């Protein structure tokens, strides 16, 4: 993953944390240019790096390794852990035609 894409992923994670109301920072990982480090004010620290051929690996100090097949799963997992009280919606597609 290019550094440009890694920076974009860091921005996506950072934006999601803002939406959930979590005080945290997401920075490029100095040891893994394609990954990032998430640090919350409560002391949680995770390294998030892209998996091959796709998906995400999450390393955390206390819990070891987690894998996610894609960004939606990664975001869900982060919200459940870091912002369990944040509202979780579900996409509903109605039956009424648009046109």
């Amino acid at each position, binding site marked *: 993953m290019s550094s440009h*894409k890694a920076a*974009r*992923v860091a*921005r*996506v994670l950072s*934006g*999601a944390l*803002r*939406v*959930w109301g979590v005080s945290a920072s997401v920075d490029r990982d100095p040891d893994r240019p394609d990954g990032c480090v998430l640090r919350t004010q409560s002391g949680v620290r995770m390294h998030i790096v892209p998996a091959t*051929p*796709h998906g995400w690996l999450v390393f955390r100090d206390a819990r070891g390794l987690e894998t996610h097949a*894609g*960004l*939606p799963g990664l*975001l*869900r997992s982060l*919200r459940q852990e870091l912002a369990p009280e*944040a*509202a*979780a*919606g*579900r*996409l*509903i*597609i*109605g*039956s*009424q*035609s*648009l*046109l």
Partner: protein
Amino acid sequence: MSPLPVSVVTGFLGSGKTTLLSRLLRDPALARTAVIVNEFGEVGLDHLLLEASDEEIVLLEGGCLCCQVRGDLVRTAGSLLERRARGAAAFDRIVIETTGLADPAPILHALMTDREIADALRLESVIATVDCAAGDATLDAHPQSVKQAALADRIVLTKADLADPAASGLGERLRRINPSAPQLAARHGAVDASRLFDGSPYDRPVENHESHAESGVTSFCLRRSEPLHAVTLSLFLQVLAEHCGAKLLRLKGLVGVVETPGRPAVIHGVQHVFHPPAWLEAWPDDDRTTRIVVISQGLDAGWLQDLLEVLDDEVKACSIS
């Protein structure tokens, strides 16, 4: 049988919904209109102010429409449709007037999704009334009024005979809240009905516009020159609904899709509830750019643009081609 158009008239207390509706119902073009009204409190004042002509008027008793919407509205609309089907009522359109305190979103959700009525109806327009004389103060004091304006397809500036919305800046303020909703001025309740009920709002192209923030509402247009994979679009909407449902007030877009070249998808949602995407036969103009207009409570355009790009990168990485 083709679905009946249904419109929702919303607007804060005293903003002139009933006056507007009373005038509109005198228009011969709206003669065959069934009206569903409800009142907040013990006295059905709105109902008393409505002039009954050839319209079917149904009063929902016992409280705010948005709170009881799943039951009362669905039951009332269903009853109207049933009476129409057996020839006991003649109407070609339904208009729902909400109470001034109503959040229109649950009403729209019910119209879009309820199995008993959604297939028989077609959401035509959401009309918000804003009082030219007191509108600024109302927007300042009542977040619900901001949401009503943000969810509208059209905004009617009522009592324009009392105050000029251009001079006061109210028109411009509402444009920042909801740039894609045309504004119509009503003097003594009079406004051109054909401009309020002129077909589906989704017939109109989604326009580009600049980002705005006003009264806690942000509106912006995401753009993308390359078409999206259909899976990307689906994942994007799922992520939005899951994480931002209540903050996402309205989303509508014209999307170039890889799998349907030359046939853009029209998408439209209110919070976490969306219509099924529809595919146009062709782009409506020479602009082939994907345009997704988002009206939200505090969502950031850059974040959503990045989210869209990361999701599409992931889908491309998984694609077999």
